[in-house]
């Protein structure tokens, strides 16, 4: 299980490939991999967003991420997982977060991946501040994750 908090741009799909290639056990055993990639949009609530700054709480953020992975491990059979989250200044179309889960079976991989990203969004101390025009404002809260109920 690997957690990375990174301050510069990362390529999520490359990270998944590199990680999987480096873990021989995944090649032999994993029958399923589920991947979630969160990317910065260039709009929010009808406004054009030109960039974003992501702040976090060093130490607590990692601790809470370890906790949600540990909770997922008690519910689903995970062979491995890779979680990467950006902090600092981010531009539209750059990746914000990667959650990849490898498991024996699809149910465990998909459910654990969903649980990890949803738990991260409510428990891990990260905060987004968006640049809109000449001003910047803090994002008040995360959505439920569906267009219809945003």
């Amino acid at each position, binding site marked *: 299980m690997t957690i990375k908090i990174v301050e510069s741009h990362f390529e999520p799909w490359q990270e998944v490939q590199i990680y999987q290639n480096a873990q021989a056990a995944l090649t032999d055993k994993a029958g399923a991999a589920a991947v979630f990639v*969160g990317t910065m949009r260039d709009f929010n609530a009808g406004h054009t967003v030109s960039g974003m700054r992501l702040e976090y*709480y060093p130490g607590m953020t990692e601790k809470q991420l370890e906790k949600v992975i540990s909770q997922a491990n008690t519910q689903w059979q995970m062979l491995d997982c890779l979680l990467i989250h950006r902090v600092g200044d981010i531009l539209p179309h750059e990746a914000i*977060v990667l959650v990849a889960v490898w498991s024996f079976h699809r149910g465990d991989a998909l459910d654990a991946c969903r649980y990890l990203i949803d738990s991260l969004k409510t428990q*891990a101390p990260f905060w987004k*501040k968006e640049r809109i025009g000449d001003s910047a404002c*803090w994002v008040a809260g*995360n959505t439920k994750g569906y267009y219809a109920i945003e």
Partner: protein
Amino acid sequence: MSVKVRYFASLRERLGRSEDELVFFAPLTAHAIWERANPDLPMPDNTLVAVNMDYVKLDVLVNDGDEIAFFPPVTGG
């Protein structure tokens, strides 16, 4: 007793500082720590609180050497 008080994100900007060192002589709850550190500002309703990097309720007692943090709802991912 001494505790470090930390503030993050919009709360840090609103207060104009990122941390306080607070000295007191009897155990205080997390809520009392806020009132001691910010006597002129009621705690915003949606504030989250952590002691030693774990979420806590406002009635938890804070001990000597602890780090307590106050911050707004998280918006990562």
